């Protein structure tokens, strides 16, 4: 797992994906920080986080698109799958590498908090709450992205498909009221990444939501392992 993790970290930077990801993340978070936080006259960082949802939604597929699709395309998966390591180690190694890049990106928040510290009092409880909420969101999104990357050999397909899926999940919130059947409504509401996330930015710490994000992450990593396993049998 350590080997996979280190290689992926190296690949994120040599391929430039990490730089693009970090740069775009910093640009948009900087924009929202200035526009939604500083301009508002309050030190509450929640507007920044609630707006970043849409950015993260489109950025995470960039991070995950090549993780497994490229292995398959370049046949480097042959090296991994014939090495004396388990499939879980491969998937989790890659997953943690993507998570690390995301943590590096998101930690810009602490730079913003220093700036806020000059302007007023930082409300650490909401800031940290939001920070971990976004981390949980990313944990789930990255798992979904890696899963989709395992389904295809083409990284563009993986990226576009991941964006579409994540965007659809986001949109599902806006048509819930038009769902007539109660059970379907319940399911869609329960599966809403967005409303659960917004809840955090409103200062509500909901343990169910924490479990929701963590179990989504686990489940999709599990699916990814199954996909790799299945490919050997087909």
């Amino acid at each position: 797992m350590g080997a996979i993790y280190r290689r992926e970290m190296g690949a994120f930077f040599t391929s430039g994906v990490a730089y693009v990801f970090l740069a775009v993340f910093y640009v948009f978070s900087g924009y929202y920080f200035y526009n939604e936080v500083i301009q508002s006259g309050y030190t509450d960082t929640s507007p920044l986080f609630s707006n970043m949802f849409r950015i993260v939604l489109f950025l995470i597929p960039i991070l995950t698109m090549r993780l497994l699709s490229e292995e398959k395309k370049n046949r480097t998966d042959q090296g991994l799958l014939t090495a004396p390591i388990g499939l879980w180690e491969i998937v989790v190694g890659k997953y943690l590498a993507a998570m690390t890049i995301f943590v590096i990106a998101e930690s810009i928040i602490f730079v913003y908090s220093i700036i806020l510290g000059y302007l007023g009092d930082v409300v650490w409880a909401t800031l940290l709450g939001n920070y971990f909420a976004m981390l949980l969101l990313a944990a789930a999104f990255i798992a979904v992205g890696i899963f989709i990357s395992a389904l295809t050999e083409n990284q563009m397909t993986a990226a576009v498909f991941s964006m579409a899926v994540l965007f659809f999940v986001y949109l599902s919130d806006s048509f819930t009221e038009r769902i007539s059947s109660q059970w379907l409504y319940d399911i869609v509401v329960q599966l809403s990444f967005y409303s659960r996330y917004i809840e955090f930015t409103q200062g509500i710490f909901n343990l169910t939501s924490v479990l929701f994000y963590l179990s989504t992450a686990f489940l999709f990593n599990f699916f990814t392992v199954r996909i790799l396993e299945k490919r050997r049998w087909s």
Partner: protein
Amino acid sequence: MIEVKNLVKRYGDKKAVNDISFKVERGEILGFLGPNGAGKSTTMNMLTGYISSTSGQILINGTDILEDPKKAKANIGYLPEIPPLYVDMTVDGYLNFVYDLKKCKLSRKAHLKDVCDLCKISDVRSRLIKNLSKGYRQRVGLAQALINNPPVLILDEPTVGLDPNQIIEIRTLIKKLGKRHTVILSSHILPEIQAVCDRIIIINKGVVAADGTADEIAKSITNEHKMTLRIEGPTHTASDKDMIVTALRAVDGVKYVRADMERERGVYDYDVETDGKTDVRRAINALCSEKGWNILMLQLSDLTLEDIFLKITMGEQIGSDKGNDSKPRPRINLVFDNSSETENAASDKGSENAEASADDNGGEK
């Protein structure tokens, strides 16, 4: 060391590998020979645990690859058809990655140096893999397989894309490796297999078509004797042709004569096939001098491994309907397409010739 029992791989309705069984002993170099699509790579992918078999069993050093894949895989170094290289890494970075991936316990610096020296890539260690030539990439692929000194090496077409010098180097290297490792290598290039391997398994259409040493296989099929003659007749016209064919057919021991193309003006080539017991060259020489014809050329064309390979792999009904019996196939199980008029099996003479011509063949390539 490696034991394969009744291995089957099915893709939908198609059986890519159909009931292959063989054993490889420690220190043996086994060659998998077969045309493209014969099932060589599929078999190797199953041996290394990259894909799973539909049925059958693979034991690597006594460990079932499906039951304890980690332990079995730790015994294998694999160079797939396309080396699994991360082109955005340096050679050193990549080999270090593989070292970590295989959880190698040997001294990192010394072991990587040994491997690089062995594969002659020491001078490119700091270069990016994407900037390397095909030959170097192949050798990095080989180095990768050698890391952690696995007792079994599985090399899928290791010399593809190399220049002749590199091919010879790699062959020498594989021979050297064969002293310490059990090696299985695949190729569709005969001389290569002949030059390197102790034992050959010819795979065609997913079944084992032949299994034995190069000599054994060569002996078993060089039971025919063919030669090509170029004879200058008296008139330099096509009428010579029929006359000469008739006369040659009358020579004792000649089974079949066929006039070939006009190679020089008014001079034809004749393909002569003998019963394999009689040396007809003197009789033909005597015939020609008696008639006043000139022999401009005489060329023996014994079956080389190449011919055998072609015969086995081009033959139509080989194995596919005969491979259902569950017991292991005999060591030599060559099935010839005897229906063609030119290829009548005769005695088992001529193994020396076969060896000689096989060597020639190896030299040429």
